[in-house]
């Protein structure tokens, strides 16, 4: 708990815990609104148009309108659906996405739960999303939903493996599964980031290609895990209507919607932690400190959220079997090669 300024400030258990829980929740809600607006505005920018313009100046409170609308929509549960699972699925999905925020270190002074197995926990909770998706898709009793859920399950499980191997490689470099320790081991200038082989003597340049490839593998895998283009086949609009959430409306759809954006942030944060030095400033001691740490962390994470949105409006969609091919025959072997190289480097360092 020493990494938590609230705990140090108040030092009262229950109030501190509530505050610690609330802070990420508020962050998620605000972030989701920003991300939705970002999605609309970036899409518009890419496509040479303006995007929402009629809600506030430049349409910046558009997401608020969406939320206000979504909470007053009729909440339909189809008669043929499995009602319990159907109603539970979106909340599981959202809980899964939100639980990941428990260990994300926003700055040197704020980690909601500083546990030793942070990386492992994050990885485990990240897989929670497919339970929600498969549940929702199956319970909807809709063929498109079922197809979408099946695709999603196959996709997420396949891409956990290269992502997991990438995590292992970084863990072996850092010698820890604690997220804060991983970040601290990358402190200093930006060439100490694991993207560039981590801290080490000059002949670490031999390992830089492997970490760079690993970074790309991890980026691709996370795109697949969050169902973003070019891997958005679980909700591929042109084929299976809206995929697993075809039958969802109103607030339950909003949960799926929020969870998707929350997941985007989680994986972006993970990339930041593992490869870009988390809350470390890129310029050594310059602009570093608790507040600046949070700034750098959110800036880096938002950059990857932006990359995901950018890719979505640029690339076409892959097909299911191509996705599997890519996962098993390209990413998995390459990630193993990188893992061995990096582990060897970690040994001899």
């Amino acid at each position, binding site marked *: 708990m020493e990494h938590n300024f609230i705990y140090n400030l108040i030092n009262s258990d229950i109030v501190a815990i509530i505050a610690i829980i609330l802070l990420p929740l508020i962050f998620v809600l605000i972030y989701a609104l920003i991300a939705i607006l970002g999605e609309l505005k970036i899409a518009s920018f890419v496509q040479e148009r303006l995007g929402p313009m*009629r809600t506030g100046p430049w349409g910046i409170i558009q997401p608020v309108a*969406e939320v*206000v609308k979504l909470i007053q929509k009729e909440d339909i549960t189809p008669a043929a659906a499995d009602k319990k699972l159907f109603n539970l699925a979106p909340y599981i999905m959202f809980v899964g996405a939100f639980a990941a925020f428990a260990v994300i270190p926003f700055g040197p002074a704020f980690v909601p739960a500083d546990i030793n197995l942070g990386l492992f926990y994050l990885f485990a909770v990240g897989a929670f999303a497919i339970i929600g998706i498969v549940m929702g898709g199956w319970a909807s009793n809709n063929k498109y939903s079922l197809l979408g859920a099946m695709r999603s399950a196959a996709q997420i499980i396949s891409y956990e493996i290269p992502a997991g191997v990438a995590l292992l490689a970084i863990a072996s470099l850092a010698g820890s599964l604690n997220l804060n320790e991983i970040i601290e081991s990358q402190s200093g200038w930006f060439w100490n980031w694991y993207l560039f082989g981590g801290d080490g003597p000059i002949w670490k340049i031999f390992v830089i290609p492997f970490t760079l490839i690993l970074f790309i593998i991890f980026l691709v895998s996370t795109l697949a895990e969050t169902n973003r283009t070019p891997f958005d086949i679980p909700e591929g609009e042109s084929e299976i209507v809206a995929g697993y959430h075809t039958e969802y409306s*109103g607030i339950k759809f909003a949960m799926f919607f929020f969870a998707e954006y929350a997941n985007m942030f989680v994986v972006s944060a993970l990339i930041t932690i593992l490869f870009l030095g988390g809350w470390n400033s890129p310029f050594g001691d310059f602009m570093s400190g608790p507040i600046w740490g949070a700034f750098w962390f959110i800036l880096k994470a938002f950059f990857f959220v932006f990359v995901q949105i950018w890719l979505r409006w640029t690339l076409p969609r892959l097909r299911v079997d191509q996705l599997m091919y890519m996962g098993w025959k390209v990413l998995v072997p390459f990630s193993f090669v990188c893992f061995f190289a990096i582990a060897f480097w970690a040994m001899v360092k």
Partner: protein
Amino acid sequence: MGLLDRLDNPYNFGGIILGTLEDLLNWGRSKSDWYLHFGLACCAIEFMAANASHFDFMRFGTIPRASPRQADFMIVSGTVTLKMAERIVRLYEQMADPKYVLSMGSCANCGGPYWEHGYHVLKGVDRIIPVDVYIPGCPPRPEAFLEGMILLQSKINKQEIFKKRKRLEEEMKNMNQ
């Protein structure tokens, strides 16, 4: 526009914007309209043009949804045939309340050029589902379509949710008596 425009309303004193909950709800619904595009014929192409960068239908806060469950209003653009009529009714019923229908083009309004000899054409989509806004034209220009969208938004803005509920409750009471 919407809530922010109501600076001249009776609840307003000294720069503070006040409104009723109804205003907020109406504002949300009118500014965030997700549509189900029921593209049927020629009008669908003009609708696509309205959706594209040149006219940018998204400015109004609309987002296309492929699933009727998540849509707020349906755009019926084109000739409705008898074979299609039942499908339109079914999709309309699948949409979540509150829902609206925008009839685009003469064919959907009244049968258009097919009104006389079209043995297989439904003479107006309002024979099977309630329509909120009619847009004339064969096909309507994208500008006409945008005008229709503004009309729909202003219609939503003027809805009286709570009064209607009260009235319905009274009617129910009277019926029970």
